[in-house]
C-alpha cells in the first residue's frame, strides 16, 4: 500500500515529477560521463606510462630501488626466468642493467646512462623500439669488426655530434670496482631531444654484462607487463611469496610504488575532479530539495489527517522517502538509457582536445572514456544518497506534524 500511495503521489504533479526526473537524470548522466572520462583518461595515462618503460611490476635486489648501485644485482636470472614463465597473467618481462657512464666521441664527451637490454624481450615489454628515430634496432651479436651495437638517445647524439654508424666509447665502473671501458657502434638513435631517454645509451645485454663485469645471470631490474593491470597487487603478492622461498633478498614493486610522484598527482587530480562533480550535483539537488519541500508543504493537511487516523510518524516518513526513491529510480533508469550510448561513444571514439591537458605529467590531446560497472553504478549510488538526504528533513518535518495544527492550516 505504501508503494501504491507513493507511486500515485508522484504522479499527482506530473509536470513537477517530469522536471525533477529530468534534472536528476541529467545529474546522473553528468556524473556517469565525468566518471567515464576521468577513469578513461587515467587508464589511458597509466597504460601509456606503464607500457612505455616501467611495466606493471619490477623486481630488484633488496634496496636497489631506493639506492641504486652497480653491485646490487639480481644474481639468479635463470631462476627468475623459470618462475616468471610459470606465472599466469604475465604477458612479458625483460631484464635490464643500469650504470652511469661517460661517453666519448671524437672531440666531445657527455654523461649518459648505460642501459643493458635484451634486444628481443625489451620489444615485447616496452615501447622503446617504437621510439627508434633513425638507424636500426640492436642485435645481440658483435659486427664484423667485433663491436657491439649501441642505441643512443637524441640528446646524447646531439651533444656528442654523432649519428648512425659512428663509434662511441663508454667509460664506467664495473660491479667489482674495476674500470670499464669499451668501444661500441651506434646502430640507431631513439626518442627526441626532450624525451626521457635523451641521455640513455642502450646496449645489448650480452655486451652490457661483461662491460660491467656482471655474469650472464646478473641484472639490476626485471620489468614485467601483466595481461590485466588490475591484477598488479595480486601478482605482486604472489611473486613476493614465491620468490621469497626461491631467492631471498629480492623486492617486487608495483607501478604506483615505482612511479610514486605520478601516482600521487593522479590521485590528487581524481579527488579534485570528484569534488567538482560533487558541487555540480549539489546544485542539481538543491532544485530537487525545493520540489520535495514544496510537495511536502502543500500536503500538510493530508499528512495531519493521515496521522489523526492513526498512521505512525515512521509511516509518513517512509512514504515520503519512498516517493523520492521512486523518482530517483526513474531518473537513474532514464539516465542509464541515455548514458549507455553516450559513454559507449566516449569509450570507442572519444574526442580530441584543442589544447593538450596535463594528466599526472603526461600531456593528453585525445580523451577517451571508460565503460565499467563503477562508471555506471557510482553515480546511481550518489543520486540515491543525495535523494535520501534531501528528502529526509522535509520528510521528518511532515512525519512530526501535529494533527491539530496541520488540519488547521488552510
Amino acid at each position: 500500500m505504501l508503494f501504491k500511495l507513493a507511486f500515485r503521489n508522484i504522479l499527482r504533479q506530473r509536470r513537477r515529477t517530469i522536471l525533477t526526473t529530468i534534472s536528476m537524470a541529467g545529474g546522473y548522466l553528468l556524473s556517469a560521463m565525468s566518471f567515464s572520462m576521468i577513469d578513461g583518461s587515467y587508464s589511458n595515462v597509466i597504460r601509456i606510462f606503464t607500457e612505455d618503460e616501467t611495466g606493471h611490476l619490477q623486481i630488484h635486489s633488496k634496496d636497489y630501488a631506493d639506492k641504486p648501485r652497480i653491485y646490487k644485482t639480481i644474481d639468479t636470472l635463470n631462476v627468475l626466468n623459470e618462475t616468471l614463465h610459470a606465472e599466469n597473467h604475465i604477458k612479458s618481462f625483460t631484464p635490464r642493467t643500469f650504470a652511469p657512464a661517460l661517453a666519448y666521441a671524437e672531440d666531445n664527451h657527455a654523461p649518459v646512462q648505460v642501459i643493458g637490454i635484451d634486444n628481443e624481450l625489451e620489444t615485447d615489454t616496452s615501447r622503446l623500439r617504437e621510439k627508434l628515430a633513425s638507424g636500426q634496432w640492436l642485435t645481440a651479436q658483435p659486427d664484423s669488426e667485433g663491436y657491439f651495437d649501441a642505441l643512443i638517445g637524441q640528446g646524447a647524439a646531439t651533444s656528442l655530434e654523432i649519428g648512425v654508424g659512428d663509434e662511441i666509447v663508454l667509460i664506467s665502473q664495473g660491479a667489482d670496482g674495476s674500470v670499464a671501458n669499451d668501444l661500441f657502434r651506434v646502430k640507431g638513435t631513439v626518442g627526441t631531444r626532450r624525451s626521457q631517454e635523451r641521455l640513455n645509451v642502450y646496449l645489448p645485454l650480452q655486451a652490457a654484462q661483461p662491460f660491467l663485469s656482471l655474469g650472464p645471470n646478473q641484472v639490476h631490474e626485471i620489468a614485467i607487463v601483466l595481461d590485466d593491470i588490475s591484477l598488479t597487487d595480486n601478482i605482486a603478492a604472489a611473486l613476493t611469496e614465491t620468490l621469497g622461498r626461491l631467492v631471498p633478498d629480492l623486492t617486487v614493486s608495483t607501478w604506483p610504488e615505482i612511479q610514486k610522484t605520478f601516482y600521487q598527482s593522479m590521485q590528487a587530480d581524481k579527488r579534485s575532479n570528484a569534488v567538482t562533480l560533487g558541487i555540480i550535483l549539489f546544485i542539481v539537488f538543491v532544485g530537487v530539495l525545493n520540489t520535495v519541500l514544496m510537495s511536502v508543504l502543500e500536503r500538510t493537511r493530508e499528512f495531519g489527517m493521515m496521522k489523526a487516523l492513526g498512521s505512525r510518524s515512521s509511516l509518513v516518513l517512509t512514504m515520503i522517502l519512498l516517493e523520492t526513491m521512486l523518482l530517483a529510480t526513474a531518473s537513474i533508469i532514464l539516465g542509464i538509457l541515455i548514458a549507455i550510448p553516450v559513454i559507449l561513444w566516449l569509450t570507442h571514439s572519444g574526442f580530441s582536445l584543442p589544447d593538450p591537458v596535463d594528466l599526472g605529467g603526461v600531456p593528453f590531446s585525445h580523451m577517451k572514456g571508460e565503460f565499467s560497472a563503477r562508471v555506471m553504478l557510482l553515480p546511481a549510488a550518489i543520486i540515491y544518497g543525495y535523494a535520501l538526504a534531501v528528502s529526509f528533513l522535509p520528510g521528518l518535518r511532515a512525519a512530526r506534524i501535529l494533527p491539530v495544527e496541520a488540519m488547521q492550516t488552510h
Partner: protein
Amino acid sequence: MNEPHRQPVIKTEHLCRHFGEGETLVKALDDVTLNIERGEFSALIGPSGSGKSTLLNLIGGLDNPTSGSVELAGRRIDQMSGNELSDFRRDHIGFIFQSYNLIPVLTAAENIEYIMLLQGVPHAERRRRVSDILDRVGLAGLGERLPPALSGGQQQRVAVARAMVSEPDIILADEPTANLDSKSGISLLEVMRELNRDQGMTFVFSTHDQKIMERARRLIHLEDGRIVKDEQRV
C-alpha cells in the same frame, strides 16, 4: 456489578485547554467534566468559538489538555504519546472531519481499507468489510471512484464508512455536515443515526445547524469553553 453499557466510554475530568498567556490567554475549554456512555448519539452544540473542536480534539487524542484528564475506553489518553497514541487512535477512535477527510490518491474503497491495512487485517476480510460498509452507507458501486469524482456528501459518507469499518469504541465528528447542503447534511446524519441504532456505534459530533442537532439523542451545550446545559432527548 454495573451493566456494561452503563460504563462510560469517555470520561473527562476538570478538562482545561488554554491558549496563549497573560493578556492573550484564551480558555478554550474551562473545567469540563463529562461522561459519554456506549451507544450514545450526542451533539456538542454552541456558537462558533465555544470550544467544540477543542473538546473533540482532546477526546480524540489530537491535542493535549492544559490540565485535567481524558479517559477513553478505560485508558488515560492524555498521558499517551508517540506510537502508543497513534496506535490507540487507529484502534479505538474513528474520525470524521469537516473537510479533507480522504487521501486523494486512493479510491473510496482504498480509503476505507486504509485503517484496516494499518491494523493488519487480512485481505479477504478487508474486502468483505469494505463492500459491506459501502452498502450500508449507500455507496454501493462507487468504491472504485477517486475522491474528486464523488460529491461532498458522498465523500463524507466514505469518511463515515472508514471511521466505522475498523469498529472503534467511538466516532468523533467535528462539524461533519458544515460543508454540505442541508439535504446531504441531513441524509449523512440519517446514515450515522442508523449505524448508531443498528450496531450500537457511539457517535459524538459537533454542529451549530439546528436541523442537524434535532437528530441527536443528547445535546451538550458549550459556551466559552464550559458546559452550560446537558439535555437528554427522546
